[in-house]
């Protein structure tokens, strides 16, 4: 995983979280976490990891360990595909 535009990153994460927590919650929460982590318009790999690390334990509370892990795996796949696609 390399760097990615913040808006693109958010769109991928929100797309995966929306069926679970709803689009409103997904958008607001990920925006809030991005702001807390101070993500720049171009997000590098360590920052993406930091964001995913912030999302997973919270998601765990709502959907349990297995589903949270699955969602993070799907997000990673989506991010990899986006990075490869340019």
């Amino acid at each position, binding site marked *: 995983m390399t760097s990615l535009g913040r808006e693109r990153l958010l769109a991928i994460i929100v797309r995966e979280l*929306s*069926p*679970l*927590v*709803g*689009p*409103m*919650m*997904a958008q*607001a*929460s990920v*925006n*809030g*976490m991005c702001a807390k982590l101070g993500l720049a318009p171009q997000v590098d790999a360590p920052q993406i990891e930091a964001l995913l690390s*912030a*999302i997973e*334990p*919270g*998601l*765990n*509370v*709502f*959907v*349990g*360990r*297995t*589903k949270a892990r699955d969602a993070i795996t799907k997000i990673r796949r989506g991010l990899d595909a986006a990075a490869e696609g340019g």
Partner: protein
Amino acid sequence: MTDQADIARRRRAIVVLLLAGAVTALFLGQLWASKSWLYERVLTARTVRAIGSIAKAAPLYVGAVYAARCVSQYDAGTTVRRAWIAMSAWLGCFAIGQTILAAHFFGSGREPPIPSIADPIYFIGYLCLIAGLVMIIGAYRASGFSVGRLREVVAIGLVSAAIFAAVGAPMLLPVARSHTPIAERIVNVGYPLLDLVVLVPTLVLLRIAARFQGGSVFRVWTAILLGIVFFTGGDILFADVSPEAQARLGPLVDLFFALGFLFSGYGARLQHSLLTE
């Protein structure tokens, strides 16, 4: 969610709606047409009571099992895990309470006494429910997701508690000071009081759940909280009317309980499918 899981979820929702429709028709029919041939000959009071007992207890047992199965999906020592243990205990206690009441009625042919052995079990169930809801709110708030500001949660809790205290105190104080035996007074005051207490975290959680619209988490809490609203409504209706009105409104009270337990149990089932499917 896979297509297959989605189809299964839709099927379950349809079954629950059909069951809700059936119990609604059964009890409203009893309320409005108790003198009809159907209710005099086929759906006699005893038959309706038997169907109602099953309709109330079965979803509670199912819900208790599914809530217990949710526990293993959370890490040991977490608040949310403890919350689901409490939610399972709530449903389990209510299921046992319902079974005791039904067994007493069909075994002896008489209404259960007040208080009955089921009452302490229900009281424990209520305490588990309150603890479960409070722990869920705490866990959701600590999740880092945007579940709302602390001051909003506190404001909803305080305002609803103040309103319930203002409404409940004038109703319950005379009952508490009456000359009926102390055990009877504890039951008469205990249930409405616990209902009002349950409604405070329920309202807070309703506000939080509204933020999950469009997601699976929203469906879980809509079902559980709707269930709680129905059965607390039934309890308050049952506690606040004269014996004559109770006899007249009995089917409505039964309907509220049946729908309350159905939706509560269904909510636990939804939570399990959210965690595992």
